[in-house]
């Protein structure tokens, strides 16, 4: 395992700037999750680290050495692709053994067999080793893809939405499993996802990408509580953070440049005497909790995250207030205002 870093890396495809002046250092043994909507440049960033793309400017380093102009094969990274990474003409075993049979590795057949079955057991695909890769379900294929990365002990693991096509249960299982493996191996992982829950639970640090720019890299808790921009605030939390203009719901900024307040739905309190009048427009029950969409003074809509047993129904009128100290403030450029 090793550390990896990008310094002022930019990658363009024609007019599109896929990755825009990104600086990022991934510490040895760190689990970094890149989060961003489709087209944000997540895959491109991984490909730059792997050497499948060459940056237009900037440098890539792995294990302290500059690898910017080094071929992918020489970088010793493992890549789990977003799709299509299993060879349809090979069996599961051959797929898993493929990285170990690479010319530079020179591993004995005996050792290969042992390593492959270890990994297969770990990912619970041991009974499928003889199947052709095309005879697997989507979830099994994805586990084989992950397995193909795990059989090696590379400098860095690069994983592009490896759990995206799995059902909720399996996703959760594998998420836990992956985190455990990462701790055991002390693996350095750069992991891409759309899924904020995955990001929150897996990451040592989360990197938020916005149209190629890395807007914030921090621990999940920090990004959640002190998002650097409105955009970063919106990436975490479900339902999304409420954005309210200063003055609404009695919110008063601590500084003159602060014009928008960000209030997490769980910080919206309902039924407190002395609050503001609101009407319930819609209610969404999620089991243990519920989300109420409220309309307050002058049509402003606010999401509130409430306990499921609260007697709140559609059309009801009630009082709302924001938990004191909860709001974060953003300026005109949508950047966080330090208070």
């Amino acid at each position, binding site marked *: 395992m090793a550390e990896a870093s990008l310094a002022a890396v930019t990658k363009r495809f024609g007019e599109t700037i896929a990755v825009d002046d990104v600086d990022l250092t991934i510490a040895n043994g760190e689990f970094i999750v890149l989060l961003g909507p489709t087209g944000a440049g997540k895959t491109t960033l991984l490909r730059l680290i*792997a*050497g*499948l793309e060459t940056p237009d400017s900037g440098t890539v380093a792995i294990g302290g050495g500059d690898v910017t102009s080094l*071929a*992918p*094969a020489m*970088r*010793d*990274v*493992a*890549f789990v*692709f977003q*799709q*299509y*990474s299993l*060879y*349809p*003409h090979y069996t599961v075993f051959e797929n898993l053994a*493929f*990285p170990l049979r*690479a*010319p*530079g*590795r020179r591993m004995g057949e005996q050792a290969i067999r042992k390593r492959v079955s270890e990994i297969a057991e770990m990912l619970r695909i041991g009974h499928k080793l003889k199947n052709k890769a*095309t005879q697997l379900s989507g979830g099994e294929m994805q586990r084989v893809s992950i397995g*193909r990365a795990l059989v*090696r002990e590379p400098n860095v693991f690069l994983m592009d939405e490896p759990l995206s096509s799995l059902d909720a249960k399996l996703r959760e299982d594998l998420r836990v499993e992956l985190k455990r493996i990462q701790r055991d191996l002390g693996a350095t992982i750069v992991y891409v996802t759309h899924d904020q829950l995955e990001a929150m639970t897996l990451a040592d640090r989360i990197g938020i990408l916005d149209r190629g720019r890395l807007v914030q890299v921090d621990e999940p808790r920090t990004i959640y509580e002190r998002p650097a921009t409105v955009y970063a605030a919106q990436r975490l939390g479900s339902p999304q953070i409420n954005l309210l203009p200063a003055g609404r719901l009695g919110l008063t900024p601590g500084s003159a440049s602060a014009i928008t307040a960000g209030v997490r739905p769980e910080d919206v309190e309902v039924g407190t005497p002395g609050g503001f009048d609101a009407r319930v427009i819609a209610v969404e029950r999620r089991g243990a909790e519920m989300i109420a969409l409220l309309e307050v003074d002058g049509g402003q809509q606010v999401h509130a995250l409430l306990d499921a047993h609260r007697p709140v129904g559609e059309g009801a009128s009630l009082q709302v207030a924001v938990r004191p100290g909860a709001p974060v403030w953003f300026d005109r450029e949508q950047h966080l205002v330090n208070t």
Partner: protein
Amino acid sequence: MSIAANPGQTGARGRWLAGSAVALYALIAMIPLFWIFATGFKSPPDSIAYPPKVFFEPTLEGYVNLFTSRSRQTDEYIKTLGPPKTWYEEIARSRNMVITGPSRFVDRYWNSVVIGFGSTFLAVFLGTLAAYAFSRFKVPLKDDLLFFILSTRMMPPIAVAIPIFLMYRELGLSDTKAGMILLYTAVNLSLSVWLLKGFVDEIPREYEEAAVVDGYTRLQAFRKVVLPQMRAGIAATAIFCLIFAWNEYAFALLLTSGHAQTAPPFIPIIIGEGGLDWPAVAAGTTLFLLPVVVFTVLLRNQLLRGITFGAVRK
């Protein structure tokens, strides 16, 4: 990777009807082939009997005549030779013939095999590399080059027969196997590049990229990952190339004579030699059909997948 299932599962009755129609068509289409096959085993009188004979006494006379040169002799002369030593001499003697040596058929047939398979191999080999390059690399003027390659197909090849004839004469390529292989390769290459490029385009780049990240070189990735997935395309392309090279008549007639002549221009010559020897012609035709049939049957499984040309196969 599966063949697209029968769209709209029709009932058993419908399938039976469709099956019968196909079987009937196949039967009708195969009658001439069967007739040729049968004629090869007829005696010359049976082959021209009227009404045509469906049941007859099979004989290998056609094949003997195909493979040998014979001369007609008087009974007296034949008696002086003593009893025939082999079964084929016996057949010849029964027609008052004496075998004087092997015919040129084997030579011609061998020429066809060398030229047909040689040019097919070259066209597919070069086509695979070119298709891969066109599909994966930044080639300057790629679209124009591809169009140029295709444009060589737009004219019937025989339109350039005379210039090629003159060039070949100058270069000493006339009537050589190398010349014919070169020519058929050149004609087939455009088809092969275009067909194969379609197949390479369909193979996601991620496969090679995964191999490259895992420590393989580009060439190894091509061999281990791309090539196996191109099997269907290569098989289909090879069959098309072989069929063209194997059947080609006009160039063969024009450019070859004593040395590199292939079977197509040779078979009609049999007709001319010593009267209409239909069984020999039919025997030659049967043998001529065989390699393409065998080749196609061998590649049948690949072909069925390949023939869907770009239909999504995952």
